[in-house]
């Protein structure tokens, strides 16, 4: 895959480094360099550049909430809004600790798509009734609770 944007061009080595660290970001520069046949200092320099340019946004860990014993439910909420207020509603939703993702969509109507995490249905409903429905510009809300996740993957660089 060739990726290029106005701000930062990625060459073949950048893409290969990204592919490797997306699979396992705990690998050392030496381990990544060994797989690609380049020096660890080269990997270090490339990763620094990718961080500085914003291609790599952050380093994080992915937790398994079930293994941690944290019971929770995830819901996908579609918020129909007055177009004049949608940016403001989206911003306020983004500030809520219960909200994992916020996206805007313009299909037939302007929608805000929101992924929400709650301990149980009561907590989910309480959050939506007390914090989302009262926001200025919210017209109505449809919520689907996820009962089974079939696939969850982030965008992966392929080389």
């Amino acid at each position, binding site marked *: 895959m060739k990726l290029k944007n106005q701000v930062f061009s990625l060459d073949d080595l950048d893409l290969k480094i990204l592919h490797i660290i997306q699979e396992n970001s705990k690998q050392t520069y030496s381990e990544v360099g060994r797989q690609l046949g380049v020096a660890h200092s080269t990997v270090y320099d490339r990763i620094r550049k990718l961080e500085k340019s914003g291609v790599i946004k952050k380093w994080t860990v992915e937790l398994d909430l079930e293994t941690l014993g944290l019971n929770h439910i995830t819901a996908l909420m579609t918020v129909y809004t007055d177009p004049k207020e949608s940016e403001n509603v989206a911003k306020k939703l983004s500030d809520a600790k219960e909200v994992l993702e916020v996206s805007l969509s313009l299909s037939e109507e302007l929608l805000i798509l929101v992924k929400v995490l709650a301990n149980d249905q009561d907590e989910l409903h309480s959050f*939506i*009734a007390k914090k989302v*429905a009262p926001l200025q510009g919210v017209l*109505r809300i449809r919520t689907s609770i996820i009962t089974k996740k079939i696939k969850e993957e982030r965008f992966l660089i392929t080389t």
Partner: protein
Amino acid sequence: MTPSSSTRILRELSRKNAFYFFSSVGNYTGHRAMSLEEFATKIREVETASLEFHLYRGDFEKWADEVLEDPELTRRISAVKLLEPTGNALRDQMDFTISKRLVELKSSQ
């Protein structure tokens, strides 16, 4: 019932304290009531599924008690719940209960 307490119960509410009608968990219908008077109107407009959802969760009683601060209305809504009405029978019972209370409160102002 004093005139001031009637006025307080009948007051216009903030968005935070309004009653928001849902049809099920997380599904907001777009109907809201920002006063007892508007609540009476909405009871006639919203789908009966929404009335059933809120009555049996205890949401109407909670709002009457904690937001409107009207113990008499709270008691009467509890009495409606005990009858376990559904569908249009529930709408009619709630309409009668709320409308009657509205008249009482307005006349005592």
